[in-house]
């Protein structure tokens, strides 16, 4: 084990170096670029066996990843924002062809307008594609999630692609203290890739991606749905195994000072770090507040989340993206849906925040908790969709 200073991009590149995939096909886009550049240097220095395909677009990058994965290779890649959007149809195809590709998504706002900074609109926009989504709070988690992602993806009951997210610039470009495992430990943890029906086995010719009419398509999708359901249990199993290796816990989410909390916030990504500080300060003042860091967004841990929210008097859900025309952001919608029928009848307020990299400060989050406190004391049902730190 080593302690090093790494940015989020460095940390993922380091995890990729240790995993040492057979193939990586990628296209640069801010703020993922440095991740690719770091890894490309490993390739040029002969530190990895990876064949790096510098594709001419993200759509081709994911297409090449699918070809390589189907061929029987272990494949990884990374992208952001419009790069993810450009490969959108291929995300669905990677998932339905059951290619266990691991991809880092350095969260950046989707155009338009064009903006290179952090929000979650990119990966949230792809939430229906059939990938497992893991959110990282900091560089350490970006590293740890990347390693675990591989094991989740390649588990035979899942055999689906996994997306590891990290906030663009805020985490990807910020130097933090990171503990990295030894190469040997990672080697042992990830093991050898065991492909299913590899194209390169010419003794057993297989057709991948056939035309599937109404007589069979639905059954195939049903099977895919099962695969992602199975990921739910496997994410936890892999987390437990990883904890033994690293000493760090990984589960669907991380509750913070929730034991007797009356008001809580659910958030994903780097904002959690800020919120944690706010919780500590408010707790000093005797406020019964807590925080839940959601890590696994797909498959959504509906039962566990509903359980964790019992006993609260009010909940704020922070969404760093919006679903136009829907009732609130994606996380808000999932949580309300998870809580329906469980007997949880408390005010749940959605705070849309940080779009396009809008800074979300300690003071803003403190104000958020204060507003939620007022919601509790007023006894009324408030406006459920609010916006944090935007000029109205």
């Amino acid at each position, binding site marked *: 084990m080593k302690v090093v200073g790494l940015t989020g991009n460095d940390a993922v590149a380091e995890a990729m170096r240790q995993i040492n995939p057979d193939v990586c096909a990628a296209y640069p886009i801010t703020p993922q670029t440095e991740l690719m550049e770091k890894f490309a240097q490993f390739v040029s220095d002969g530190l990895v066996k990876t*064949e790096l*395909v510098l594709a001419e677009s993200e759509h081709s990058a994911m297409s*090449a990843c699918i*070809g390589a994965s189907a*061929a029987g290779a272990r494949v990884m890649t990374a992208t952001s924002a419009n790069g993810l959007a450009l490969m959108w149809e291929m995300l669905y195809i990677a998932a339905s062809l059951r290619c266990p590709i691991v991809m880092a998504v350095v969260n950046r706002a989707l155009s338009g307008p064009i903006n290179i900074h952090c929000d979650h609109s990119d990966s949230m926009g792809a939430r229906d594609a059939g990938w497992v989504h893991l959110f990282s709070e900091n560089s350490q988690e970006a590293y740890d999630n990347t390693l675990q992602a591989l094991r989740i993806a390649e588990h035979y009951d899942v055999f689906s692609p996994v997306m590891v997210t990290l906030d663009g610039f805020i985490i990807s470009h910020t130097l933090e203290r990171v503990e990295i495992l030894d190469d040997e430990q990672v080697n042992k943890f990830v093991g050898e890739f065991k492909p299913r029906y590899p194209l390169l086995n*010419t003794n057993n010719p297989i057709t991948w991606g056939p035309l599937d009419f109404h007589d069979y398509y639905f059954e195939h999708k049903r099977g895919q749905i099962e695969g992602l359901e199975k990921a739910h249990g496997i994410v936890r199993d892999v987390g437990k195994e990883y904890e033994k290796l690293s000493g760090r816990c990984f589960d669907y989410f991380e509750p913070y000072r929730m034991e007797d909390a009356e008001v809580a916030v659910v958030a994903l990504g780097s904002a959690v770090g800020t919120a944690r500080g706010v919780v500590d300060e408010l707790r000093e003042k005797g406020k019964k507040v807590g925080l839940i860091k959601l890590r696994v967004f797909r498959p959504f841990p509906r039962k566990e989340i509903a359980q964790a929210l019992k006993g609260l008097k009010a909940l704020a859900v922070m969404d760093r993206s919006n679903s136009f025309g829907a009732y609130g952001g994606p996380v808000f919608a999932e949580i309300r849906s998870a809580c329906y029928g469980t007997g949880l009848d408390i005010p749940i307020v959605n705070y849309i925040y940080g779009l396009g990299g809008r800074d979300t400060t300690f003071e803003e989050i403190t104000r958020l908790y204060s507003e939620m406190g007022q919601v509790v004391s007023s006894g009324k049902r408030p406006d459920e969709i609010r916006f944090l730190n935007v000029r109205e």
Partner: protein
Amino acid sequence: MASLKELASREDLLSGGHRACAGCAMTSIVRQVLLIAGRNVVVSCATGCLEVTTTIFPYTAWRVPFIHSAFENSAATISGVETAYRSLRRQGKIKEETKFIGFGGDGGTYDIGLQSLSGAFERGHKMLYICYDNEAYMNTGNQRSSATPFAADTTTCPVGCVVKGKPQFHKDLAAIITAHNIPYVAQACGSFWKDLTTKVEKALSADGPSFINVLSPCVLGWKYPTDETVEIGKLAVDTCFWPLYEVVEGNYRLTYIPSQKKPLGEWTKRQGRFRHLHELGGEELLEKAQREVDRKWERLLAISEKPARPGKQPKDTSQ
């Protein structure tokens, strides 16, 4: 180069029972390619006639490993397969020599697939890309592509009272690919089996990317009787609309010169999509088309090495 007898004795790697139309050139072309490629090959295919007629779940006509992922990315997909092969071979995990062939129609190659083809070739993957060119988006019912010839009737540029079919000449894809400076580029036609199979063999032995654009007459789209496919292909070549040539390390070589260059009208008059060229008012269009065929043919003649025996038709092509 194998004789026809020897080739015919090899195992057919595309089985019968697929759903291609009676008289379709495409599947005949694929069978010819696979007779040369053999079993140690992985094939990719763009969405289109070839993919949908040969892989209707739970059946497949492919006796070799095959992948279809999407429409515009047959080249990108096979480049990924080829990369995995290189990686695993370098790691000692694979011993056999395998070839990689990407198929795509003109739709998935000239238009929506051009970027991914260009990218794959620029990166230098050792793969052969074969475009079966039936000159429109035939799988979806004959919408125009940039391969559709001048004045052809298609459903998206139909012959009407004001507009008489496609106003643009077709793109010269072989020229575009030649500009990528890859080891081997060729134009071929399914009706000339010896020419096509020779080219496939040369392409597969190239040390880098290779490309063959194969004319693939389409019964329903071009509108001619189902048993005339081979002849329609021959006429396209004998009118010099579709010259048979190859570019080896940048050097042009015609592989066939018709003993008598036929007027373009001999080809167009056999097809319903060009019927208006042979009706009152169509003469101007036919003349314009003829001039362009002649211009390109003259230019090709000027820069190409000629075949050893000009005017000699390859044997056994049709009857």
